[in-house]
């Protein structure tokens, strides 16, 4: 009886101390973490719509979107996040499109847990830059080898699934946005 009481007591004590310590650390670090996340979004929006000088959160249909304005307060494009399943886990991408919705301005991969050295090359400038100025009249497609048309993306060697995943989730969201516009 005495022994089991000692066991329960010490385990509870350790758990309580641990909970208090963690709550305190969480409280201290939380503002910085939220600020980091907000800053990351901000940086990404300005990166994918490079002409933007300010942006406003808005909605198209059910979808959250950032309306971007240039120096003269003229609408210069939209930015929005898309996410979907990649080869291993969720991929999150920020996409910038022109104000008339005719072409992609740029994309930026925000989060991914693809295979290091293979799939995670989706966040390299080489892969992201391929999306610049892509025509949105047609669906974007993935090819192995050098792209011929202005709606084609070259797949990453050894990571076709990750490359296709990015293209698919971008395509789907744009399709959805076009419909609800």
């Amino acid at each position, binding site marked *: 009886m005495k022994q089991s009481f000692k066991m329960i007591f010490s385990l509870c004590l350790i758990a309580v101390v*641990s909970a208090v*310590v963690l709550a305190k*650390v969480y409280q201290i670090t939380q503002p*910085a973490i939220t600020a980091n996340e907000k800053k*990351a979004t901000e940086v990404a929006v300005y990166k994918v719509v490079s002409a933007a000088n300010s942006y406003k959160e808005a909605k198209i249909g059910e979808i959250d979107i950032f309306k971007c304005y240039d120096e003269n307060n003229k609408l210069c494009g939209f930015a929005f996040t898309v996410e979907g399943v990649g080869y291993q886990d969720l991929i999150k991408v920020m996409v910038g499109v022109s104000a008339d919705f005719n072409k992609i301005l740029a994309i930026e991969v925000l989060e991914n847990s693809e*295979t*290091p*050295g*293979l799939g995670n090359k989706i966040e390299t400038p080489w892969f992201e830059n391929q999306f610049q100025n892509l025509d949105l009249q047609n669906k974007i497609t993935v090819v192995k080898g050098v792209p011929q048309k202005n709606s084609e993306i070259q797949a990453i060697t050894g990571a076709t699934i990750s490359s296709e995943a990015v293209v698919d989730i971008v395509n789907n969201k744009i399709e959805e946005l076009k419909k609800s516009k």
Partner: protein
Amino acid sequence: MRKINVLFSDFIKGLWQENPIFRLLIGMCPTLAVTSQVKNGLAMGLATTFTLLASSTIISIFRNFIPKEVRIPSYIVIIATFVTIVSLFLKANFPEISKELGPYVPLIIVNCLILGRQEAFASKNPTHRAIADALGMGIGFTLSLIALSSVREVLGMGTLLGHQVIFGNFRPWIIMLTPPGAFLTLGLLLGLVNIINKAVKNRKKKKQ
């Protein structure tokens, strides 16, 4: 003087004689998973070293308070607390590194190197010796991860810490970046360590 000698041997054994990866073969999970690039291996090694050092210190201080029947859950709670602190700290101060390591940081909790050292050493020895042991094991672990990830990054990408080191007509061996590449490299390095140990032993015998 004797005291310092004991501390030194507690520390130094983690580097080679009882190196966690190449001699004890523990902590294999992060070893195989994150060593495709030197940068990740190094960050993982440092995060593990910090967690090991902090948990060994605390557990060694309270070693007489924790009943031995519930020692494993107690250790895990203490280790998990430190890992969560590391994870929050990285997110708040180094968001770039935190993003790079992703899910591997919380997985430090289940690295059996940490639990293993608590069970084998920190729970039975005074605090100063536990700290020396944790430092030696942590640094040995970090150096081993660097060795493994160097081989894999150079052969798999032709780079070292992101800098191009192989020039000319070299085609990267993609397999080195995948799990089979991790097993191959680990096996070959283990063989190499065994050969060196054998050679050293033979030389000692001859001298006698």
